[in-house]
Structures are given as C-alpha cells and as structure tokens.
C-alpha cells in the first residue's frame, strides 16, 4: 500500500529531478503535466529508457518515453553532435534517475539504482503485469517544442509512507567530498 503522502512526495521528487536534469542548459524551460491517474492514455513513443530504483520495500521504475524526432535529436545532441542520440539520452536519463535516487535516499537508505536500459515502447502496455501499487504518467515539454513523456511505476512489498521535504542545502552534486 502506498499512501497519498508518498504518491505526492514521489510526484514532487520526480518533477524536481526532471526540471533540473532533463534540460541541456540551465536557461531552458521544462513544463511537466501529470496525466490523469485513473485512465492513463496509451504511450505514443516507440522507444523507452528504463531505470530501476530498488529497496527492500519497493521497486520503482523510472521510464522516459522518447523518439528521436528532429526536434528531440537536435535539442539533446546540440552540445555533442558527433554522438548518438541514444548514448546522450541514456546519460541524461541516468542523471535524472540519480537525482530521484538521491532525494529518496533520505527516507530509504538502502536504495540501489540500475544502469539505464532501452526497451520497445510497446512494453509500456504490459506494466500492469508487474501489479504496481501506483503508476503516474507525465507529459514533459522542454522549451515549448521538445515533447516526451515519463512514467513512474512503483511495486511495493509493504506499506510505503513518507512526506518529502525539500532539503535546505539543495545542490550537493558536482562537489568533491574527500574522505
């Protein structure tokens, strides 16, 4: 069972991570709209990048649905035009999921995160086979022109309840912590 507090917390954590990590430059805009929780529309994109955050209590799938359209390709590859879209987008997905993992670690210290892997978009139709306790889908629009979508799918083995509070010391990434 996943409480309403936990669902809202997960939503806030995802939106914060996506807004800071799915953009290529800090000046870019990222609008995120959660699609209705009850009757989720079918996923249109043909490809998806999946990462898993696992704990003893749950397994969270962070899924980014994306197709390499000209608008998407030129946006994500603009700083590295010699690289493949997949290579660049997998790392962006990794950073986004890493930010989610970092925030959730404050409530679930035993988390482990997978590396990103690619699947056909058709797999999204079978998420219900995992018997998730909660699925949320989002429409993501960057700079009003780049459109992708995301799904959070959480399968729990016990009661999940936490209330996310944004940490006061926000940005800890990129700093070297010497031992």
């Amino acid at each position, binding site marked *: 069972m996943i409480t309403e507090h936990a669902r809202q917390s997960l939503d806030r954590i995802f939106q914060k991570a996506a807004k800071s990590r799915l953009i290529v430059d800090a000046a870019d805009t990222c609008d995120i709209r959660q699609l209705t929780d009850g009757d989720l529309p079918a996923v249109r994109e043909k490809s998806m990048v999946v990462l898993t955050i696992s704990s003893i209590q749950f397994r969270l799938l962070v899924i980014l649905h994306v197709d390499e359209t000209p608008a998407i390709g030129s946006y994500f590859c603009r700083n*590295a035009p010699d690289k493949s879209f997949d*290579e660049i987008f997998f790392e962006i997905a*990794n*950073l986004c999921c*890493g930010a989610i993992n*970092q925030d959730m670690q404050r409530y679930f210290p035993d988390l482990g995160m997978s590396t990103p892997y690619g699947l056909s978009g058709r797999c999204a139709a079978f998420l219900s086979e995992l018997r998730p306790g909660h699925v949320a889908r989002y429409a993501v629009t960057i700079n009003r022109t780049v459109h992708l979508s995301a799904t959070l799918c959480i399968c729990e083995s016990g009661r999940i309840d936490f209330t996310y509070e944004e940490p006061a010391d926000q940005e800890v990434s990129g700093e070297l912590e010497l031992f």
Partner: protein
Amino acid sequence: MAKILVVDDSSTVRDEVAGFLKKNGLDVGTAVDGRDGLAKLKADSGINLVVCDVNMPNMDGLTMVEKIRSEAGNKTINVIMLTTESSPAMKERGKAAGVKGWIVKPFKGEAVLETFKKLAG
C-alpha cells in the same frame, strides 16, 4: 607526466570528463568499465589518479577499487568515485576500499580541477 584514468561506461561522461581535464593540461586515458580499467592500470604504471563510476557492466567501480587495493603495486593510486549514487552505505564501502573522495554527478570540472591536479601528483 602523471596520468589520470577516467572509467565510465557512458562515452558521454568519458568524453566530458577526459575532454575537460585534457583541456586543462592533464594527461588522461579512458576505460569503459571496471575490467577495462584494471587492464589499463596494469598496462600503465604512470597512472596516479583514477576517476571512476560505480554502476557499470562487467565490473562495477567499487569492485574495481577493491581489486586495485588488493594488488601490492597499486596501494598509492588515488581513486575518486564520480557517480549518481550517494548512499551512505556505498560511500562506506568506498572508504573501506580506500577511495579518496566521492562526487555525485553531474561533473562540474572547475569545482574539482585543482584537487585533481594535486591528487594526480
């Protein structure tokens, strides 16, 4: 010149980190996973600093560090982890293996350049 080895399965990260360090006058090599990293270390005794991801196929970064430390000639090589992982348990495992420091991605080169230069000797 002392050399830095960047170990990451993402070519985006390898190119970003290695490119930044090279641009700042450092001698840099790359490896695609822990297994490749160990092989490069064995082949090049001039490497003084390893910058290494945690989650990689074939051999993860912490296993690579543990193997580095278990070999007599590698006790003094400095290792910095550069990863999306930030769990205290992971960091403790890193400390126990002899990791010198930890950076949560994304990489911000200017913030760490001087320390990297010192550690690379």
